C-alpha cells in the first residue's frame, strides 16, 4: 500500500462513516417517514424497531415487516441467479477481490457512497437547467446497478466463506454445495437470515452494501479493466 493510500484510507473511512451515521440517524428517518408513513415501514428508526415487539400491534407490524423482507429476499434470489448465470466469472472475481483486500473494498465503498450523495447534490443544482435531470437519472441507475452487482458478489463471498470447499476431495464429494450458483444462494440465505434480526441485521446488511459497492468499483464490475491509465507515448 502506498504512502498516499495509507493516509487516504483511514481519513476517508472516518469521514464516510460520519456520513453514514448521519444518513442512518433518526432525524433523516423522520423526514422519510413523513413522506410515506406505514405501520410496517422499513424506514423506521432503529430503536423503534426494537420497541415495536412489546405490543400486539407492534408484533403484527413486525411480522408484516418480516414478510416484506423475505419477499425482497425472493426477488434477490431471482436477480442473483440471473446475474450469476450470465456473469459468473465476473461475480467470482469480485468475490475473490473482496476476500483478498476487504479493507480496501470497504474504504472504496464508503468513499463511493459519499461521492454518490455529493454528486447527487451537485446534479440537483443543475435540475433547473434541464441537464440535471438526465444526469441524476444516470447517477441513480449507476448507483443501483453497482449496489445490486456488489451485493451479489458479497453473497458469493459469504457463501464461499461459509460453505466453500477447502480441498479437492471435498469438492468432488459434493453434489449441491459447489459452483458459483450454490455459493451465491448460500450467501444470500445466510445474509438474508441475518437481515431478519432487528438492528443488527440492518447494520450488517448496510455494511455488506458498502463492501459490495467497493468491490464492484474496485474490480470494475469484475472485468479487471485498468482504470485511469497513464498515457505514455510509444517508444521506437
Amino acid at each position, binding site marked *: 500500500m502506498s504512502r498516499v*493510500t495509507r493516509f*487516504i484510507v483511514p481519513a*476517508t473511512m472516518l469521514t464516510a462513516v460520519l456520513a453514514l451515521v448521519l444518513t*442512518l440517524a433518526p432525524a*433523516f428517518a423522520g*423526514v*422519510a417517514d413523513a*413522506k*410515506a408513513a*406505514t405501520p*410496517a*415501514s422499513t*424506514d423506521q428508526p432503529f430503536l423503534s424497531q426494537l420497541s415495536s415487539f412489546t405490543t400486539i400491534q407492534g408484533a*403484527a407490524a413486525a*411480522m*408484516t*415487516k*418480516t*414478510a416484506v423482507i*423475505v*419477499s425482497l*429476499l425472493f426477488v434477490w*434470489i*431471482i436477480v442473483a*441467479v440471473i446475474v450469476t448465470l450470465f456473469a*459468473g466469472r465476473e461475480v*467470482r*472475481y469480485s468475490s*475473490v*477481490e473482496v476476500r*483478498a483486500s476487504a479493507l480496501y473494498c470497504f474504504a*472504496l465503498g464508503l*468513499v463511493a457512497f*459519499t*461521492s454518490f450523495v*455529493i454528486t*447527487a*447534490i*451537485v446534479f*440537483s*443544482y443543475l435540475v433547473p437547467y434541464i441537464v440535471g435531470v438526465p444526469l441524476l437519472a444516470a447517477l441513480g441507475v449507476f448507483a443501483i446497478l453497482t449496489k445490486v452487482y456488489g451485493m451479489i458478489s458479497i453473497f458469493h463471498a459469504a457463501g*464461499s466463506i461459509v460453505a466453500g470447499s477447502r480441498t*479437492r*476431495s471435498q*469438492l468432488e464429494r459434493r453434489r*449441491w454445495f*459447489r*459452483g*458459483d*450458483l*450454490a455459493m451465491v*444462494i448460500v450467501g444470500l*440465505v445466510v445474509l*438474508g437470515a441475518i437481515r431478519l434480526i432487528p438492528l443488527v441485521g440492518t447494520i450488517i446488511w448496510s455494511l455488506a452494501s458498502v463492501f459490495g459497492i467497493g468491490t464492484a*468499483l*474496485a*474490480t470494475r464490475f469484475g472485468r*479487471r479493466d485498468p*482504470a*485511469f491509465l497513464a498515457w505514455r507515448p510509444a517508444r521506437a
Partner: protein
Amino acid sequence: MKTPDCERYIEDPEANASHLAACAECRALFGAESNVPSPKIDLNALPLAPWEGAQHRPWPLVTGAALAIFAIAAALFAASGVSPADTLAANMPTLSRLQSLVLLMRQAPIVVVGVLFIVVNTVLIALLRRAPKGLDV
C-alpha cells in the same frame, strides 16, 4: 549437451525417449539409474483455485431455496392477514433516506458542496487507481 539429439530430448523427453539408449551422458543424467528424484506432485496438497468446479449448477438447491423463501413469505403474509400486493407496494425500498440527506445538505453553502465534491471525487479516483489483486479466477 553435445548434440541436437540431446537438446531435443531435453525439450521433450517423452517423445524422444529412445535417445537415452543411444547417449551415455544423457542416460547418466536423466536415466532410471540417475539419483535425481522425480518430482511428485500431490494435487490435493495444492490450494483449491476459485474456478475449480465453478461451472457446476445445482438447480435443485436453487429451486429449493427459492421455493422455501417464497413459501415463508406467503405464510407470513397469510398469518399477518394483510394483502401482499398492497404491503409490498407500500414498503418498496426507496431512496428516501438519501433524498432526505441530499435535501438537508443542499442547505449548506454551494461553495462547501463544491469543495466537498472535488475532494471526495479526487479521493475516489485516487483509490480507483489501485489495481485489483491479480488472482487468477
